[in-house]
């Protein structure tokens, strides 16, 4: 990887200039947005953008650990769809017996977390114990969850019972002190993630495993356990993201969470984590997520560009955001 050409250029957390890369890109976007549309910085719009980012954001934090430890997970999008479907089915199923209300919501949440844990465990097991390329494993599970949800929904859409929707709705739309729950949860996950990455042994071990798993093994780090845990945590976070997602529209279908995996991975890399593993930073990922959802937002707030070209603009900005970063790196 070009990143390791023996020169002394490398990201040193918090120190060198390339840290500025993502932040700069974000700032540029904010400025552009503000100059294009006066409502861009309105509380409403900011709340919208942040709340929307929460799903990908929460997942991307987990993805940061997976990638840092040298792994990859393409299945998160379909996994989210599948878990959402499951959650809805369970809640609809228990509605007659339990009736609409918070107890049932908690059952739903539990379902999501348990399913997420299990899904993460399956990925982790196939990758660590069966020693299969993470890419293949998660490509496989991606297809599996996607078609399972299609099957559960009979090709259509699984919708949460209306009565229940009213109960669960606040989880996405309400909040604390004017900050909506998704934003709060995202913030919490990000902060905890950042601390774990920098201040807990697990973060170090993940980086060590990603940097050189043999060395980690010789240094009595339980490599398989670390790898497994990264996938399980990711699974749990997918569950959490789903808990935020279901209340929004109260439905899940085969088109739920399509391409979330690519967005999450892109966010992680834009944030400065190395795809080959060995170095990761959660705060960078958060910025990456914000960059991605700001692009969408800005494109919607501006006319002029043919909507057909949105994808192209997105692509260009993603690449630019990373160039910016690499350039800085070169100097640092």
């Amino acid at each position, binding site marked *: 990887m070009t990143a390791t050409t023996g020169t*002394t250029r490398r990201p*040193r957390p918090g120190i060198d200039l390339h840290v500025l890369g993502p932040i700069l890109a974000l700032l540029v976007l904010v400025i552009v947005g503000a100059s294009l549309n006066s409502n861009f910085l309105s509380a409403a719009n900011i709340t919208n953008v942040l709340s929307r980012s929460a799903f990908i954001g929460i997942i991307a934090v987990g993805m940061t650990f997976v990638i840092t430890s040298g792994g990859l997970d393409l299945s998160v999008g379909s996994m989210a769809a599948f878990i959402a479907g499951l959650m809805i089915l369970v809640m609809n199923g228990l509605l007659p017996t339990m009736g609409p209300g918070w107890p049932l919501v908690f059952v739903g949440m539990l379902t999501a977390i348990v399913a997420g844990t299990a899904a993460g465990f399956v990925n982790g097991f196939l990758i660590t114990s069966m020693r299969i390329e993470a890419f293949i494993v998660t490509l496989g599970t991606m297809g599996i969850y996607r078609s399972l949800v299609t099957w559960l929904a009979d090709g259509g859409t699984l919708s949460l019972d209306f009565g229940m929707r009213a109960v669960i709705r606040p989880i996405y739309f309400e909040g604390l002190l004017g900050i909506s729950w998704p934003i709060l949860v995202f913030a919490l996950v990000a902060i905890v993630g950042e601390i774990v990455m920098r*201040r*807990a042994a697990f973060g170090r071990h993940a980086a*060590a495993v*990603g940097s050189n798993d*043999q060395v980690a093994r010789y240094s009595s*780090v339980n490599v398989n356990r670390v790898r497994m845990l990264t996938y399980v945590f990711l699974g749990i976070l997918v569950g959490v993201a789903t808990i935020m997602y279901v209340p929004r529209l109260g439905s899940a279908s085969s088109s739920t969470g399509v391409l979330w995996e690519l967005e999450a991975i892109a966010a992680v890399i834009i944030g400065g984590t*190395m795809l080959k593993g*060995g170095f990761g930073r959660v705060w960078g990922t958060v910025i990456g997520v914000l960059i991605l959802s700001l692009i969408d937002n800005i494109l919607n707030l501006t006319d002029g560009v043919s909507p057909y070209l949105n994808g192209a603009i997105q692509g260009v900005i993603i690449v630019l955001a990373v160039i910016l970063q690499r350039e800085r790196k070169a100097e640092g």
Partner: protein
Amino acid sequence: MTAALSLAGICRSFGPVQVLGDVDIALAPGRVHALIGENGAGKSTTMKIMSGYLAPTRGTVSLNGEPVIFAGSQDAEGRGVVLIHQEFNLADQLTVEQNIFLGHEKRRGPFLDKAAMQAESRALLERLNCRVSPRATVRDISNADKQMVEIAKALSREARVLIMDEPTAVLTEREAEVLFEQVERLKAEGVAVLFTSHKLDEVARISDDLTILRDGRVVSQGLTAGFDQDGMAEAMVGRDVSSLYPERRGAIGPGTALEVRGLTVPGHATDVSFSLRKGEILGLSGLIGSGRTETMEGLVGLRSATGEVRIGGKPVSLKSPKQAQAAGLCYLTEDRKSRGLLLDKGMRENLTLQCLPQFTDWLIDTAAEEAALTKAIAEFDIRAPSRGVAVGNLSGGNQQKLLIAKVMLADPDTVIIDEPTRGIDIGTKQQIYEFIHALARAGKSIIVISSEMQEVIGLADRILVMRTGRIAGEVSGVEMTEDRIVRLAMGLGARREEAA
């Protein structure tokens, strides 16, 4: 007194090849035991078996007299048996401190106690008086520092038995001294120490007991005092190697092979100028980190550098090693593991990688490659368990030999050899020195970078001494004494002399 750790009748085979046969060794607490032998004799394998990285095919390992079967290196380490690998065993992207405490992080509650770990790392490195910062990333520090970090890592593990596989291979005498002080200290604390080295003077100096391996069998064992260096060498190699450095025959040619003016490698070397005659062997000495490697890497286009270079009188601009090679100039790296060889590939692929075109007329001539390999194996006496083996499974020294063979295959007019005999046994050293002289006699020019003062003096016609990226001076003929060189290298009362 019961041995802290002992092997009895240990055998080990890899596939069909047996590399160890009936090895018995006992390490006593508070004593230093030296294990020596040719490249591929089985030293590292023995050490790996002692420390749980490898399981013996037959035989018993006993800890404090009790037979044990280590579940793995963790298990062994848990019981106080620690191995410092021959090859670096550090995670590149992590910092020094992170590496030292990897797997044994200090915690305060759920969190890491970074302050404590930083402090302790600093203390450990201080003890080894190594200047590198605990915050530095391992990828950026020098080989010597990496070695010191490895040692610090081992020291941090409260070893009862400390096993060091060629710890001094990348160290100069100065740093080796520091290491030996630590060894003395551990000895005093009753730690049993086993180490191996190809520098027999060290062995003679610091070890109490000695075991000599040849072809995986113990050929001689006893108190070190009972051996003199020539004796050791002879027991190892099986022939007389007392005259290590060959007589300099054949005069230096008239023509200038290489002329360097004001070579500057940003951050590593400034205004380096020298010239090299045809058939000359130029030594390049200096302390670790003096920038010798970087200077030469700049010269052959591996690092961005400025300055003018003339080869055979003609000015050339060398932007890449490919261009340098085309101009007849090759550099042999000091870092065989991460810059020299593809560890997951076979010997053939590695041997011919540098000059594949020679073997290619639109398709690679595999037969010719095999022939070249056969020749190299014979010429450099590479001991491999099988031709197909991944070079990562070759013994350290044999990797080094393969690396030299690889570069020599390009048949350069001028070759820069960085640490040519690092990790090579005395017998083979002799062969390599012979080989270098043969090159010189054939009119080729050689630059030898070495941290072994004796080696440079023994080999070179003329020695340049570098200090913090500059040429501190030049010595030749009778001036070529350790004292003179060290003074220049450390900048003690050395008038800045212009390089010829």
